[in-house]
C-alpha cells in the first residue's frame, strides 16, 4: 500500500459478509450494474471501503492491481467510497446514517417502478447511534419494504460510548423481521441473506469481531484507523495466509 490510511480492522469485521453476499447471493455484476435490472448493495458504514473494494475487485469490477494506489492523491479508491469513481459502488458514503435511508428510497423506488429486485445495505453498530437510522427503520417497516435487507455489523465498537442493548429486539420492535448470525460463519451468513419476509424488511444482526483474522488487531481500538508498519506487515500477511 502506498499510503498509511484506511480502517483495516473495520474492513476485516465485514469481509466475510461481503464475500458471501457477492459470491453467492446478490444479483449484480460488472455487466448489469448500470442497468435497472440489478440488486443493490449500499455500504452505509463507508469506512469499511477496503473490504468492499477487495470484494468488487475479486468479482471483476476492476483489476485488483488498481487498489495498490488506495487513498493516494489521484486514486479512484479513497478511505470512503465514491460512486462516481469506482465501478460497483452504489453510493458515496462516509458520514454515518446516510446509506440506510438512501437504501430505503431505492427499495421504495424499485417497488414503484415494479422492478422485482432486492436492496442490501450494511450499517455499523456504532452507526446505529444516529437518529436517521431509526427514522429509516420506522419508514421501511411502515411502507412494508420487503425487498430490503439491512445487515448490522455488530462488532461492539461503540459499546464504550453508547451501548445498544438488545439490538435485534430493537429492530423487531420497529417492525422488522430480525435474525442474528455469527458474522464470520459463511453458511450462517448465506442462509440469512437468502431469507426474506413477505411484508417486512429484513435485518441481520451479524455478530462480528473487529479486525477478525488478525490477532493483534482483534477488538483493539488502536487499530481503528491505522496501517501496519513495515515491520508488522509481513507478520500480519503470514497470519492471514
Amino acid at each position, binding site marked *: 500500500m502506498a499510503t498509511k490510511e484506511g480502517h483495516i480492522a473495520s474492513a476485516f469485521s465485514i469481509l466475510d459478509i461481503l464475500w458471501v453476499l457477492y459470491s453467492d447471493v446478490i444479483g449484480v455484476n460488472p455487466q448489469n450494474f448500470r442497468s435497472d435490472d440489478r440488486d443493490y448493495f449500499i455500504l452505509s458504514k463507508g469506512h469499511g471501503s477496503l473490504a468492499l473494494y477487495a470484494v468488487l475487485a475479486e468479482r471483476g469490477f476492476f483489476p485488483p492491481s488498481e487498489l495498490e494506489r488506495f487513498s493516494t492523491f489521484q486514486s479512484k479508491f479513497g478511505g470512503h467510497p465514491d460512486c462516481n469513481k469506482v465501478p460497483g459502488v452504489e453510493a458515496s458514503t462516509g458520514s454515518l446514517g446516510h446509506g440506510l435511508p438512501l437504501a430505503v428510497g*431505492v427499495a421504495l423506488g424499485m417497488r414503484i417502478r415494479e422492478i422485482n429486485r432486492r436492496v442490501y445495505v450494511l450499517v455499523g453498530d456504532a452507526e446505529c447511534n444516529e437518529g*436517521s437510522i431509526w427514522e429509516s427503520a420506522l419508514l421501511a417497516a411502515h411502507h412494508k419494504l420487503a425487498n430490503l435487507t439491512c445487515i448490522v455489523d455488530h462488532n461492539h465498537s461503540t459499546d464504550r460510548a453508547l451501548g445498544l442493548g438488545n439490538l435485534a429486539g430493537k429492530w423487531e420492535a420497529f417492525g422488522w423481521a430480525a435474525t442474528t448470525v455469527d458474522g464470520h460463519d459463511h453458511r450462517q451468513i448465506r442462509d440469512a441473506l437468502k431469507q426474506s419476509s413477505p411484508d417486512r424488511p429484513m435485518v441481520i444482526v451479524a455478530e462480528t469481531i473487529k479486525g477478525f483474522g488478525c490477532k493483534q488487531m482483534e477488538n483493539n481500538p488502536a487499530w481503528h484507523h491505522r496501517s501496519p508498519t513495515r515491520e508488522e506487515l509481513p507478520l500480519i500477511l503470514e497470519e492471514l495466509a
Partner: protein
Amino acid sequence: MVLLGDISVFGFRNAFQLHPKRIYNIGICEQAMTSMGAGLAKTGLIPVLHSIAPFVVERCFEQIKVDFCYQKLPGNIVSVGASYDYAALGCTHHCPGDVAVLRTLPGMEIVVPGTPGEFDRLFRAAYANPHPTYFRLSERSNPQTHEVEFGRANILKQGKKATVIAVGPVLPAVLAAVQDLDVTILYYTTVAPFDGDTLKQNNQGGKIVLVEPFYAGTLVADIHEALGTASAAIETIGVPHRFLTDYGHAEEHDEAIGLTPAGIRKRITDFVGRS
C-alpha cells in the same frame, strides 16, 4: 415523486387521490426523507421534497450535501415559509439563512420566485434537469407575474446612476422605492447559477444595490465573481444578521428591518447620493 414532511398535506389532498403511488406523507423525519429522496432518484424517479424552510434545508443540510450534491443526483427541494412568514411562531420557524448555506454546495441550483405563476414557469423549466434544485416559496406573493426564465435575470428598467438587484419577493418594494430614480432594475428569480452576464452588461453606474429577501449580502460573492476586473461599490439591503425575536406578522418585521418602499428608498438614495 412528492415526499412531504407532514407539511402542506391538506393542500395535496387531490394529489393523494389521483396519484397514490407518487405522493407520500413521510412524517416528521426530514433527514431520512432527504436521503430517501436521493435513493428514489437513483432508481430514475424525480423526487420533490417539501417542508418548511428550516426543517427541509438547515436540519438536512448534510443530507443535501452528501446524498444529492456529492452523489450528483437530481432532485427538488421546495420549501415554504421564506425568512419569517411564520413570524408569530418565532425564530425556530424562521429561515433567512437557507440561501446562504445552500450556495456553499457545488452543483446546487437555487430558485426564488416572486409569485405562484413564476414558480410554475421555473419549476417546469428546471425540475427534471440533472442537478439538485431548491425552490424557495413564500406564503406571500408579488402582485405581478413576470416572464421569468430559469438561469436569467429580467431587466425591468434601465438607468444610469446605479443598478438595483431585486431578488424574488422584494420586487414590489423595490419598484415602489425607485420608480422615479434613474437606476437600472434587474429582477433575479434564479440565484444559483447566478446570471453574471446580465449584471456585467448592466453595471453602467459602477454602483450596485443588492436587495434580498434573506440575509443581507448573501449574493455579494456572486456579484464580485460576475464583475471580474470591473469595479463597483456595493450596498446590501436585506434581513439583518441577528435573530428576529419579535412575533406578530411578517409585514411588521418588514417594517422593523426597513424592507419597505420607504426604507429601501432611503438606503438607495443615500448610497447613490454618495460620491
